[in-house]
């Protein structure tokens, strides 16, 4: 079977439509992950022991099982208990929860990396707990997290094809649909690969920039 440029031209608009959904799902998923991750992190670090332990277990469980199966679960099992989510929303929530567990780790490490002396200095200057978090801890903890978080954002982007399994018409699903009706896999699949490669090469440079920009503040 030969590569067919005419066919490529023909399917390009459809694929780009899919790419838009892919990007949308990534952005929404990232937002959900950022928030859920924070919830996980705070529960694990500050909640009473039983809740903290339960959260830890949930995080471990989510991280140890495939996103694909979790998506099936959200999409096909949750309606049995009356939660019926549209496909894209189910996908975004699945991505968000799954990657939220990774984000939680990043948050935790970022917060624990703020030296103990900073907490003590905040106390010695009589800041309240809230003020300490807002003005001293988070401003120092967040910048170093950014590269790690961006890394997961890119990983998540590359996992969006899973959403095709729950009928979201993202890039991969569009490609499959094209392949299905034209009996040609070479062009659509290769193009999907090329799209991902381009996006990820761009993101490599973006990441380098982030890493430089948010290099560690070198004072304790």
């Amino acid at each position, binding site marked *: 079977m030969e590569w067919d440029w005419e066919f490529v031209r023909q399917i390009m608009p459809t694929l780009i439509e899919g790419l838009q959904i892919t990007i949308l799902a990534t952005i929404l998923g990232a937002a959900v992950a950022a928030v859920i991750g924070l919830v996980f992190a705070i529960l694990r670090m500050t909640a009473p022991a039983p809740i903290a332990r339960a959260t830890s277990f949930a995080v471990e469980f989510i991280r140890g099982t495939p996103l694909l199966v979790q998506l099936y679960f959200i999409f096909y099992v949750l309606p049995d208990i009356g939660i019926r989510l549209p496909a894209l929303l189910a996908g975004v929530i699945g991505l968000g929860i799954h990657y939220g567990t990774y984000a939680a780790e990043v948050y935790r490490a970022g917060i624990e990396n703020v030296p103990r002396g900073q907490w003590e*200095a905040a*106390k*010695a200057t*009589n800041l309240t707990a809230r003020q300490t978090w807002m003005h001293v801890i988070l401003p120092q903890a967040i910048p170093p997290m950014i590269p790690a978080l961006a890394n997961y954002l890119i990983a998540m982007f590359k996992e969006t094809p899973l959403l095709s399994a729950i009928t979201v018409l993202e890039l991969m699903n569009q490609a499959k649909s094209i392949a299905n009706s034209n009996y040609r896999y070479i062009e659509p699949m290769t193009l999907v690969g090329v799209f991902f490669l381009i996006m990820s090469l761009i993101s490599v440079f973006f990441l380098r920039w982030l890493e430089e920009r948010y290099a560690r503040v070198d*004072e*304790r």
Partner: protein
Amino acid sequence: MPEPIIRIDNIVKRYGPLTVLDGLSMEVMPGEKLALIGPSGSGKTTILRILMTLETISDGFIQVDGEQLYHVKKNGQLVPADERHLHKMREKIGMVFQHFNLFPHKCVLDNVTLAPILTKGMPRAAAEKRAMELLDMVGLADKAKSMPAQLSGGQKQRVAIARALALSPKIMLFDEVTSALDPELVEEVLNVMRKLAAETDMTMLLVTHEMGFAHDFADRVLFFDRGKIVEEGKPEDIFRHPKQERTQTFLRKIIAAGHRV
């Protein structure tokens, strides 16, 4: 005869099986300058951290400026204090750390103004005016806009002193404020401290291994060993005529290591 501003009454501090302070009692008069000396691990840092409420105590009572530090009265009974009470008490106390602990993401000026603005609701303009006075006092008015990372160790420590002073505490705690500094930077920090001791009537507690400075600075010297005060007195007496065997050994060692007494 005025009341003591700090009255420590038989306090005990344990870390697990380790007893670090073992029934310690002492009193400090308002305006007094105290030097705490003694071998490593004897509990000097611990007592300062307890006064700053960075640790809790296992037993005993501490009264600061007429109020219990770790306890509040409730229905006529003393019960452990809540965060609100601690917050109120901390207003009276400031601390300068061995490793400065400046906020690295804020410029020098913001380091000094942050707490007054947040905790006392001071207007920014007033806070900055006062901060500039303090920075001037420690000789760093021209560094107001620098970030901590751009300063030398001695400069950082002087900023830390200004930051603690900005809250106008009645009591200042200094924990080995020069021991993380390169030798040539020690003097600039000690000069600030001398000025402070001479010009203010703040109560000051100083942990140090600089015996010469302790001698000049302090009204009274406490010698700590293994969580107890072994000997106390005027600097001349402690340094020239120590009575206790342990004090003598300690001072001999310090002199052998090249410190001036």
